[in-house]
């Protein structure tokens, strides 16, 4: 299948641009607004083999009560769980604006039959998930079978129906280089992804600024061509506020303010939320904070 032709990526140019983006200085009110915005974009995530009903319930509680002592905080955007915990999460979050996202399609490896993947997706959708995070078949991608990757994404998109948004995880840490990241982004977008997402969080490197910039460029080109917006979700490895703000700067300078909303941009992270909270309190109280005073999950 040679039907997919993507532009080549200028690696040095990307790194140079990232380098300049990381040097933007954001202080005072702008910083506080940025931190709150980032918090509102977090997908609070637990994707462990040891997840339990209680763990998921507790995370849903945390999502709704980030730090009650400090009023006026936004909520996180969503919680992200395995399909068998979707019902529990939906139930726990039924009175809140927080969405429930579920990974599916034999997450994290993606090695299974299409039938199993569709069943996996339907299970999450039927349980009430608002969003599905699927993984692409990296093996097939590396074998050059891009048509297979495309068809699979399209099939899962169909299984999601019209109301459930599909995030496509490229697992960029396994794609090898930025050219492949760009190609995979283009395939996912063409196949109907509502969001493209960097990583499962199970592989290192996970999200990085250069990889995210390449994906944002793919989204931008698609938008210029068709007028259709696609969302972006870097996931994994974003654990501090400084980095989160750099991502926001990158989104704003690449795609514009329209994407600075949790409908179009998310952070997949588990520990980022607490760091954002600590920084928000630092900005407001003037005192550096301690993790001791914030709930762990």
């Amino acid at each position: 299948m040679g039907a997919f032709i993507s532009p080549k990526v200028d690696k040095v140019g990307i790194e140079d641009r990232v380098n300049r983006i990381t040097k933007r200085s954001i202080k005072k009110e702008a910083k506080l607004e940025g931190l709150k915005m980032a918090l509102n974009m977090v997908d609070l995530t637990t994707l462990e083999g040891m997840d339990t009903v209680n763990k998921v319930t507790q995370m849903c509680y945390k999502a709704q009560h980030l730090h009650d002592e400090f009023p006026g905080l936004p909520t996180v955007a969503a919680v992200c769980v395995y399909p068998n915990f979707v019902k529990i999460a939906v139930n726990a979050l039924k009175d809140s604006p927080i969405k429930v996202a579920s990974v599916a399609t034999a997450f994290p490896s993606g090695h299974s039959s299409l039938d199993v993947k569709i069943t996996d997706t339907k299970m999450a959708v039927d349980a009430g998930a608002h969003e599905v995070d699927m993984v692409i078949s990296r093996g097939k991608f590396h074998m050059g079978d891009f048509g297979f990757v495309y068809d699979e994404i399209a099939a899962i998109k169909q299984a999601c129906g019209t109301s459930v948004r599909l995030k496509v995880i490229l697992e960029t840490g396994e794609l090898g280089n930025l050219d492949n990241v760009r190609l995979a982004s283009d395939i996912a977008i063409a196949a109907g992804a509502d969001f493209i997402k960097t990583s499962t969080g199970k592989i290192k490197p996970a999200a990085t600024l250069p990889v995210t910039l390449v994906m944002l460029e793919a989204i931008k080109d698609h938008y210029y061509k068709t007028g259709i917006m696609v969302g972006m979700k870097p996931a994994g490895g974003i654990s501090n506020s400084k980095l989160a703000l750099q991502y926001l700067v990158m989104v704003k300078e690449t795609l514009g303010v329209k994407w600075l909303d949790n409908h179009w941009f998310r952070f997949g992270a588990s520990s980022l939320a607490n760091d954002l909270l600590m920084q928000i309190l630092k900005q407001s109280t003037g005192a550096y904070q301690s993790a001791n005073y914030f709930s762990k999950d």
Partner: protein
Amino acid sequence: MAERINVLKTYKIFIGGKFPRTESGRFYQLNNRSKAIANVCLSSRKDLRNAVVAARGAFEKWSGSTAHNRSQILYRMAEMMEGRKDQFISELVLQGVDRKEAKVEVDLSIDRVIYFAGWADKINQVFGSVNPVATSHFNFSLMEPMGVVGLVAPEKSGLLGLVSSLCPILVSGNCAVVLASEKLPLCSITLAEVLATSDVPGGVVNILTGKKEEIMVHLAKHMDVNAIYLTDNLEHKKSVQEEAIQNLKRVVLGNQISWGDRTVENPYIITDFMETKTTWHPVEVISGTGSGY
């Protein structure tokens, strides 16, 4: 042949086992009798933030190591100091200390480290206790380190005062963020080199040079600092105590005039940076008489 140009040391700060420059890029000139002797980092509150993060990160490992191991590591620190004696002496002289006094100070400093190293496995033998209770419990109290301790080091004793106030903090398993003497900072950075080569894990001790007054308020406010040791009788002590209330930081006030004095070796200074944990362990009968301890 041209005369060789000596390679001078850049005095940097010590955070997380590394020697970065201050993130602020600022420095101040250190003078002795109006002669410039070194440029020293003028640390900022962000350096303090980084130092506390490093100290917190190192706490679990350091406090979790065995008392015996901590003792050995502090002893190793003394060994390394012995090898750098001449350097310490010449630095003290450079900063205006009389050579004879400098030699005495360095010797005493090394002995101090040895003295406190010995306390590591004795703290709980001496200060722990088994407590008499009226129920069928074995009730005992053990001393535990507090966590991250901010040390505002003695202004007038650049090495002896520093090690004498630092070692009692470290020996029980605390991590330290040190604000070094403003006028005598050189030995603190050389001591950092000693620490870096003594198996003291990175982050256990972090040393900042600069204006204490500027950084102290952020240290006092910091929610992740558990205690502060103000070794000198500073005029700011009241405001430090007030800021410390927010997370109930313990503020230990010192007023040591002479750090060579044997009273410095009072072991209660170690317990000033420790908390007591008491355990009620249910048992059927404890003592021979059944009365309980």
